[in-house]
């Protein structure tokens, strides 16, 4: 079993669908942040079989963590202060997200029109389904 130490101050993004950690890493631009990051992939999970986890030591200002729900609606976020969990969050799925999800439908106007905001709306809250406002194709998280 792989062991990663606990963190003192920061957040743990847990229950990321296996294989999805790097997308979140990239969205949060963690590479350019002044914090230590551990990305754990394919961790065992009773609930999910396999999952990814990101542990971030440090503070992430100006980040709307709810947006992460649009990227993966199952994730949970633990806020850690002085080594203990002070808050557990399930991101609320925002009704709209702009320029977070990119439409990959080659028939969509976003594939040819420069400078368009890639805009998604939530159409099925229970299953976390987002659809492109232009072509209405559901965002494929694979």
């Amino acid at each position, binding site marked *: 079993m792989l062991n990663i130490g606990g963190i003192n101050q920061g957040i743990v993004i847990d229950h990321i669908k296996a294989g999805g950690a790097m997308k979140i890493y990239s969205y949060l631009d963690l590479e350019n942040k002044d914090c230590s990051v551990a990305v754990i992939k394919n961790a065992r999970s009773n609930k999910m079989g396999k999952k990814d986890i990101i542990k971030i030591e440090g503070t992430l200002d100006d980040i709307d963590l709810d947006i992460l729900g649009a990227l993966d609606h199952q994730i949970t976020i633990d806020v850690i202060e002085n080594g203990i969990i002070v808050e557990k969050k399930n991101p609320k799925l925002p009704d709209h997200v702009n320029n977070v999800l990119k439409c990959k*439908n080659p*028939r969509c*106007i976003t594939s*040819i029109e420069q*400078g368009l905001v890639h805009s998604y709306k939530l159409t*099925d809250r229970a299953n976390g389904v987002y659809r492109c406002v232009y*072509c209405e194709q559901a965002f494929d998280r694979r």
Partner: protein
Amino acid sequence: MKHIISPTDLTVSELDELLTLAEEIIQNPKKFSEVCRGKKLATLFYEPSTRTRLSFEAAMLNLGGSILGFSSADSSSASKGESVADTIRVISSYADICAIRHPKEGAPLVASNYSSIPVINAGDGGHNHPTQTFTDLLTIKNLKGRLDKLTVGFCGDLKFGRTVHSLINALVRYEDINFVLISPEELRVPAYIREEVLDAHNISYEETRKLEAAMPKLDILYMTRVQKERFFNEEDYIRLKDTYILEEKKMTLAKKDMLVLHPLPRVNEIATEVDDDPRAVYFKQAQFGVYVRMALIMKLLEVENA
């Protein structure tokens, strides 16, 4: 100012008003022949279409208005790389209202975001075609006298057929609507329509492969063409294109007052022998298309009734 991008951009009561106005126009077209005098409709057709473009143009001319536009991307500045957003900003200063057809899904929505005149979606790829849906609804309402308490059969390509998806979306808003979805396995209605539209509205529907078995139940039979341009693989198209052919023999199984609709163009899915059957109303449907577009132009331009 209102745009029409999707068939559900009009509420049920707005739609009622639209269809009522269209029926007034049917009763007395002359009364409306000058109501748009001095107004201009721009038809921005980035892909070829005969029927829809001419129907829009006929509608505006019938109202006494004028038309301008282009009928393919090659003959527009799109061929020079101009964006939809820029084109519509310019066209807004030339015309009072525009109808746009574009091969890319969502292009009319982009246009509406930058336009200072009402934008009507005249078809965006395989996505929406609201004026076809309004045409279908006017045809049903005018010839059946109602839009509720109907069993509607859709037959053919229910997977790629945008007219089918749009009409389903529009009809689920009425009471006591049942659907019979007749298609080969490969061309079934997509799962998201079943889950997010039919199940979400508690609509009763059945899926079947057998057109004959469904015929006696139907108040409306909506036939569709299997569209070659939607297939990536020609073999699949050839295998599926002749799955359903409606001919006189099958029509004998139907109710005496069932209506056969088709968005046209048809290829061979309705035998020409059916054309003379009074229940075959697809050519009337094309005529209704002009009336409903006349009504829509009047509503969007907020033109007073004559």
